């Protein structure tokens, strides 16, 4: 019996260890990005500059050596003012670069510019570090707090059950001992217990209570797993297929803060948010080649855009053998459910993140929401309709006020949970 309790103890210990480990894992927070310059450089400079390559503007490597810092501060803030003022260095630079005027950046402070210059001076080294740091933060942890709580409570219940079983075992054992002592059989029992050669697991198997407990646990475990499995059939939360181009929303939406609708322009006006066509990519990637990360070479991922378009970055000419990019669809709503982006984005003003999750932190996109009907309906029941300032709703709100004074006007109240509104 002692052995059994020992085994239980070690089991409990290990499971506690496992639990604490997993909690520790999820609480890893990534380090504060030290290189402000990288971010700024990517936001402001990369559409015209690269470190090692001439894009629109000259390659920036060694710019700290070529010019004095005071000059650079003025130049970056407003180069044309310098040229107009007749600064010889500025005029020379302007002429050297075919008189293409550089965009002024009056919003950058001196410290901002210094950090950019520092980044340029450091070159690739800090960039690699920063990228590494960022990558560490990603991973498909289940960010579902509800399921964490449920998991925790199940573990607690199991622990309590274990405790009860252990206590009961003790009680029973001591009671048995007492009764055995009374009957004078204790000596014999101890001899049996000490008998060598009988393996411990065989003894365990003979313990009916233990076997019952294990079977019970198995039934509960398999039953709940089966139940959950059934419920989640066809629910693909976390679905993260490999895409033909390793496009990072974290970089584009997160760091560069490009508006979602710049690329997904359909979201405002159509049922489809639409995957951007490659000409949208080329608006920036005509110039932005991320060559600073690839030793002056164009990033292989960006090369895929060029290849799809049959575009030659050297001659800047398009060929006549383009091949479309076959993205893998992540959010697959069933055919019988009609969903319209513009209704939600434009009319209701729902943020993209509400359904698509923290896209700006996703290196690769995965399905964040379950996309089940329950999930839709819940939101329709809770979300208030943005009727103010929209003349469409005037009649309805007036009528509605008569019926239910003071209550929240949710989508559901407006008929947003009626079958035919989505199923036709």
């Amino acid at each position, binding site marked *: 019996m002692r052995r059994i309790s020992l085994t239980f103890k070690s089991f409990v210990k290990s499971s506690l260890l496992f639990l604490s480990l997993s909690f520790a894992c999820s609480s890893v927070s990534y380090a504060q990005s030290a290189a402000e310059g990288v971010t700024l450089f990517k936001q402001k400079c990369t559409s015209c500059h690269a470190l090692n390559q001439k894009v629109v503007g000259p390659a920036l490597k060694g710019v700290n050596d070529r010019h004095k810092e005071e000059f650079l501060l003025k130049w970056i803030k407003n180069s044309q003012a310098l040229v107009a003022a007749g600064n010889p260095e500025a005029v020379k630079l302007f002429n050297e670069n075919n008189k293409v005027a550089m965009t002024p950046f009056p919003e950058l402070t001196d410290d901002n510019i210094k950090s950019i210059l520092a980044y340029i001076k450091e070159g690739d080294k800090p960039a690699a570090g920063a990228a590494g740091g960022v990558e560490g933060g990603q991973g498909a942890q289940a960010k579902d707090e509800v399921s964490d709580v449920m998991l925790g409570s199940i573990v607690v219940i199991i622990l309590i059950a274990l405790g009860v079983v252990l206590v009961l075992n003790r009680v029973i054992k001591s009671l048995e001992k007492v009764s055995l002592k009374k009957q004078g059989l204790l000596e014999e029992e101890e001899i049996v217990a000490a008998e060598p050669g009988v393996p411990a697991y065989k003894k365990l198997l003979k313990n009916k209570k233990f076997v019952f407990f294990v079977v019970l646990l198995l039934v509960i475990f398999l039953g709940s797993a089966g139940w959950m*499995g*059934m419920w989640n*059939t*066809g629910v*693909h939360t976390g*679905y993260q*297929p490999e895409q033909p181009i390793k496009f990072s929303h974290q970089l584009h939406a997160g760091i560069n803060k490009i508006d979602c609708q710049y690329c997904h*322009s*359909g979201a405002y*006006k*159509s*049922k*489809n948010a*639409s*995957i*951007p*066509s*490659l*000409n*949208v990519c080329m608006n920036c990637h005509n110039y932005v080649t991320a060559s600073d990360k690839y030793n002056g070479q164009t990033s292989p991922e960006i090369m895929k855009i060029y290849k*799809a*378009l049959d575009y030659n970055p050297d001659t800047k000419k398009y060929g006549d053998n*383009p091949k*479309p*990019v*076959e*993205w*893998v*669809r992540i959010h*697959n709503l*069933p*055919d*019988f459910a*009609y969903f*319209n982006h*513009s*209704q939600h984005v*434009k*009319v209701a003003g729902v943020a993209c993140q509400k359904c698509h999750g923290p896209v700006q932190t996703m290196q690769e996109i995965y*399905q964040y929401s379950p996309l089940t009907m329950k999930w839709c309906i819940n939101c329709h029941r809770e979300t208030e309709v943005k009727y103010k*300032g*929209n*003349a*469409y*709703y*005037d*009649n*309805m709100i007036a*009528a*509605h006020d008569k*019926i239910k004074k003071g209550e929240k006007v949710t989508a559901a109240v*407006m*008929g947003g949970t*009626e*079958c*035919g*509104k989505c*199923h*036709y």
Partner: protein
Amino acid sequence: MESNKKYWKGLEELQKTPEFVENNKNEFSEDLPIEEVLNGAGLSTATPRRDFLKALGFGLGAVSLAACQKAPVIKSIPYLVKPEEVVPGIPNYYVSTFNGQSILVKTREGRPIKIEGNPAGLLGNGGTDAQAQASVLDLYDVSKLRGPKLNGANARWSSVDSFVRGELNKIQAGGKKIRIVSSTVNSPSTKSVVADFVAKYPNTKHINIDAVSYTGIIKANGNSFGKAVLPRYRFDNADVIVSFDADFLGTWITPEEYTKQWVSNRNAKSLASKKMSRHIQFETGMSLTGTNADSRIPVKPSEAGLAVVALYNAITGTVLPGTQPLSNNVIADKAVKLAAKELVAAKGRALVVAGSNDVSTQIIVNAINSALGSYGTTIDLDNPSNQYLGNDAEIVEFVAEMNRGEVDAVFFLNTNPAYDYINPKAFTDALAKVKLKVSFSDREDETASLCNVIAINHNYLESWGDQNAFEGYYSVVQPTINPVNDSRQAEESLLTWIDAPVKDYYQYVRTGWEKTVLAATGKTWKDVLQTGFIFTGAKPASAYTFNFDLSPVVASVVNQSKTLAKDIELQVYESVSMRDGKHANNAFLQELPDPVSKVTWDNYVSIAPKFAEKIGVTEFDLVEVKAANGYSVVLPVLVQPGQAQGTVSIAVGYGRTKAGKAGNNVGKNAYPFITLSNGTKQYTSTVTISKTGDTYELAQTQTHHSFEGRNIIRETTFKEYAKNPGAGSGKKIDSKEYDLWNDHDKPGHNWVMAIDLNACTGCGSCIVACNVENNVPVVGRDEVRRRREMHWLRIDRYYSFVEEGKSLSEESEINNLENLDNVTVVHQPMLCQHCDHAPCETVCPVLATVHSSDGLNHMAYNRCVGTRYCANNCPYKVRRFNWFNYWNDSRFDNYLNNEFTQLVLNPDVTTRFRGVMEKCSMCIQRIQAGRLTAKIEKRKLKDGEIKMACQQACTANAIIFGDANDPDSEVSKALKNERTYYVLEELNVQPGVGYQVKVRNTVEA
């Protein structure tokens, strides 16, 4: 007048045949074999334990496998470079032209999915006919060829070109004739291409041939007034219309335009101003126009000509020499005299038309119209129609030329004489003598399969082009999709073969327009692409007087009548759904029930009940119809009340053998029954009929529901209406109403519909529009026989009698009637009524059909488990059960069972799975889209902004949809009309669709 008229849907209902009574006891025609399972071996055999375990194991395994299923990999492929005007998910509309009518083509993601009438167009009032609605399906037809063919083998365009050029040069050197044979070409650009071709090869002549031609009218006008044209008839200017066999609401010349005109004197607006035209129809078979006429008099083909002469005599008060009295048809004789009186009284506002293609008959009609002062008012000879330019004599001459070996090359454009010539065999034999035979058909049809070269043409949705339907009305054809197959536009092929300087047909059309129409009107090419057409203005219609001696003409008519007056007289007609048979492979049209007989997927021999009894045939008997010229077909009999005694009618357009999967061997070809007389085709003949002894069940939709004599149809007469606008709409019973159900709140919208039975002609274009819009599947002949057609919207046709000017109400009187000639017909579109207290909702065990807050009855297909309780409980019988996955079942390989044709599906509407109920959703996708647009633009919804597919297709504007919560909406106004009644309102299901009483302008009553 409270209507106590007796209506019936078909003869079986009238006669209460035992089969009919038995069939109508049940909701579904066939019982499910439940009894068999329960009583037979089904339940008594014990399932062995092992089998049970096997099944259990398999089930568990299958379920767990299904549960393990990974997210499916669905590719999403965006544009490489997105065209600026395309936003995925938002439809684009392009103007184009179909059969002369300006249309809008709705495209989604670059593929056309729906045809709508151009609201500004001059022919259709924004509506279209069924052919236009269905035409989008032809684009996705898998029976078309994928590329050109040369001598029976697939070929490249380059080899086709060099072959044709080489042959043409040889023929040019040989000096023999070249012929371009086409159905009517009114396109200025095509004509110009043909002219270019003729310039290069001067031996060429262009021949217009029409399968159903109007040569008689054109020639008659040439004879009478020196203007050999097809006039524009103006039914809107006519107060009294007399038609002899002209089905002008269904098939005659340009039925959409005529419907628009005809209805303008009979719709709610006209009735409100106490005006209604009077329409008298003399005809052989029961045509769509006949069913809508105020008075309809059956006449034999042999009597029709005589009746026209009698009418002339009665109007002018003379007796033409040689006149034969209508002694055999006393009723018609009386009716002609009455009609003459009315016509004379309405001088200047009267119109007489005749469907006959006989020049003599048409000349007398001209004389009548001249006497009535119709020219310049109801007939416009100065702005003629170009819709049918064919000359029957030319095709006959052409066949003779080929026979004589004078023709070395022939090009067939949009025509199929091997099928629709009056003697296909003679044509085929003659064609064999021609060296170079080129067809521009898109498929290997009857004619194309006899040709050396099939230079497949684009579908009209892939083409550039133009049309000139009538004088001054120029409309543009523009492509809405890149050519799907390796096809080339026929005009471009011709330009290539003559090595024209401009081979690109787009350039050709555009330059042509810029030089002519655009230059004259000061508009730009872009304007045309936006508006779809240019109308250069009508010339003033001048009056014409007829002054020729009519005696030789009368002699010819009488002679004609004598030749016809023997055996059984046959009338060959175009059916409203199939027309001339060019679209025979269109499954939507094949399954569109004939407006009168409600037969789908077949043609048949129409015969009057009394006459059928006389010659000893009954419904569905297969009979052999043998014409004097030796041609015979075996077709089933359809007993048709209203058909003239001693006559039978057979529709053309059927019996195609090389149309494609859907259209092959549907019915029999009736074109060879057409005879040639005095240089024009005659659609009448004499035949003998003999029983074969077999029977063949026609797939009819009409007998599928019984209405147990309930007061569903309400009608009145114009006289009664003038006294009391609410006449016939049913008395309101003065009693307290109790509701079993709670009322629904409708805070926002309350969608309702109003249908004017007086405007609806029953043409059926709404049905096809609904099919296309809502992905309603075509089920095929066998399933229609099992009453499983899926149409969400049907048009019910009810018969009743008029005998001596009285509506008959007593059943005994009906049984005593000698014959069933004097039937009147009412058409009633029937669709889900979206009842506020819907009986279907209360019986659904899974809440798959529920009510919405805007007055609609929703149907959630994915929730439906298929108990069909709702259909049993629906008093209107509008719920349809989906028995099969018609889009993915090899047994229904009509049209949709392939990925290509599925591109025609509306992406905003799901395709329903088998085993679920479906029904009219009130085009909820359109309502939702319309609301969303208003929400995005932050404005109120405008009345009329959302249109139902059926409403949009209706040229007669019989259907109005809108918001009843808006007191100013068109539909609210329409429903406030005194004529409004609700079908089965006594059930208090509170339907959302209101009907307006049919008004008949009968004189006698």
